[in-house]
């Protein structure tokens, strides 16, 4: 990583919006844009982007994943910073592309170049822009679910918490087993739906017990799983992507 770049936000920043946010949760992308713009970041959205290839990679279809990954690399080749509202998709690019392309030395150089500029949103704010208080206001009791990939592949634990705690009006509550998986796991959630739902049950139990009225995370995969159970059971706890919380005024 080029550290001289870190102190500057003049570098153009590309949104890597992820297919999930694009199709199902565009408001998360919109919130991201608002927060970044309010911090004076110049952003663009490479319109040819689709998916990073993770669903196929995690399902064992490396050949198919590779073709989609190559597309990602060519779309973002000329970008400065690349910022994504997902710890999981960021892990795919930063960690798992190396696995996917390990037998293609030609790709490794392109890959290193791009993956060293790719960040998850909360990590980008805290570690690159050096911002913890984005001026957000939200009145509520907030608990945070650690997305597995953000926590254990990218080792980002404190950054989202710092951001949440800096929001005016937020009472932050750490729930029991906050770092335990929610049971989503991509295709795992439909390959073994009963197991996935059973893991989810325990997550919901811990969220409810925390007494929070809002559950925040960095990944819409987890929030789609958690939110799906909350709404099914009529539990009035709000799910929010961290970008949405930080865009609240």
């Amino acid at each position, binding site marked *: 990583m080029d550290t001289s770049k870190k102190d500057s936000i003049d570098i153009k920043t590309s949104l890597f919006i992820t297919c999930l946010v694009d199709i199902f949760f565009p408001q998360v992308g*919109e919130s991201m844009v608002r927060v970044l713009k309010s911090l004076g970041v110049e952003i663009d959205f490479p319109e040819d982007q689709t998916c990073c290839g993770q669903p196929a990679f995690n399902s064992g*279809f490396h050949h198919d994943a590779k073709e989609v990954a190559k597309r990602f690399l060519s779309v973002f080749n000329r970008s400065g910073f690349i910022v994504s509202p997902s710890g999981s998709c960021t892990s795919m690019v930063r960690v798992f592309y190396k696995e996917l392309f390990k037998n293609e030395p030609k790709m490794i150089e392109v890959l290193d170049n791009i993956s060293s500029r790719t960040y998850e949103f909360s990590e980008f704010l805290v570690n690159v822009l050096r911002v913890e208080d984005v001026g957000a206001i939200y009145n509520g009791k907030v608990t945070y679910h650690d997305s597995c990939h953000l926590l*254990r592949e990218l080792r980002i634990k404190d950054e989202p918490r710092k951001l949440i705690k800096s929001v005016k009006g937020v009472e932050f509550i750490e729930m029991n087993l906050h770092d335990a998986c929610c049971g989503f796991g991509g295709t795992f959630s439909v390959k073994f739906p009963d197991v996935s739902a059973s893991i989810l049950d325990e997550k919901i139990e811990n969220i409810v017990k925390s007494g929070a009225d809002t559950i925040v995370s960095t990944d819409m995969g987890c929030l789609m799983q958690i939110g799906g159970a909350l709404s099914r059971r009529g539990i009035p706890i709000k799910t929010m992507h961290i970008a949405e919380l930080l865009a609240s005024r």
Partner: protein
Amino acid sequence: METRRLRFEIDSASALKNQNLQKALRNATDRFRAIRERATGEIKDWEDLRRRAREIKKNTIEHIDQYLEILEESIKKAGGTIHWARDGNEACSIILDIARKNKVKSVVKSKSMATEEIELNQALEGAGIRVVETDLGEYIVQIAKERPSHILAPAIHKTKEDIARLFTERLNTQPNLEPEQITKVAREKLRGEFLSADMGISGVNFAVAETGTIVIIENEGNARLSTTIPRIHIALMGIEKVTPKFEDISTFLNVLFRSASGQKISAYVSFITGPKRKSDADGPEEFHLVIMDNGRSEILAHEETRETLYCIRCGACLNICPVYRKVGGHSYGWIYSGPIGAILTPQLLGIDKAPDLPFASSLCGACKDVCPVKIDIPRVLLELRKRVKDSKEGRKNTGFGERIAVRLWRFSMEHKIIYSLVSSLSYIVQKPWLKNGRLRSLPLPFSRWTNHRDFPAVSKTPFRRMWREIKDT
């Protein structure tokens, strides 16, 4: 040996419904997690220690042929006998032959996953030999006529009430025994078995090449009794249990106990070098070490998944795994369960026997963080998933629907127009199922999601269209 194809989804279904099992698993894994966390937190250089343990394993596995030869020489020098077994059947025959030659009628066993792996008890019993498991957990599982469901705690799937009921049923004890009373009953029953057995069979935690010493770890004293009282001691190990130097043991013991049982050291650590010597007051007259391959050299041949062989069987990955916590050990279909089972079983039995197991994980990665030898289990799982899909058997096992789905997915991800079209079409198609902005019950295959939770609706305006409006604001 087990040859039926393992089916994780079917096998886990009954576990999920069993409330007793759910309670037992939750309590036990909670306790294991807490004591592990405390014990590893006490060590300042815990990460260094894990790295060192991994380095030793890595070096050993890379040069395993040399170390096994050194081990053979050392065992012979110590007066022991070495036997090499290509697979489980060979290992069973070797042990049976020794038993027959010595007219063995009864055997006491200390806990050993290797003997479970080759179904040694069935082989011995088939030859009319009485076999008694002497580890309390194994004893419980044996009288219940079940198989262990955890590497470390074989009866973890049972509550104390379950065990009291089992003792009443099978051993005619008073009903509702407390754990202390259960232990007392077992101890009384087992004492006689130790004294009358002709042969003791144990596993091996570590086998030191330079000295020919096998190390056995336990908390109940049953392994020490099994390996010292009977006339013959047979130890069975997989090839990966060899370690070059005696000093390696201190590193392993330091990481193993804390990861496994949250202890600084277990109650008993036995170092056994050959049979009884002239000067010894007691001990077995014969010591046999059976070293078996049983699929391990096949793992060795695959560089990408080789680290599976580093495992020292502490069970920490089982205790931390969100999947294991819900489905228990028996759902994995064979004796190795949890994350390590999900990578070990398909490699030992063949990927066609357990094609589901590499997929039976949410890839949360909690396992790699607790592994004392830092096995990157999620990475190995991903590699095995690829191997399943690349193999002929795997392709056969992949449903038509999944293959089509992947093709369609790739096609739409490679063509922006198709991608946008699919997203717009989905917005229209979803309408009949839409209720309060969510999809509550969808037809197959999407019902696999909506049976348990709501699915989000496809947005009318995808972000890419929204962007055009907001980019200049």
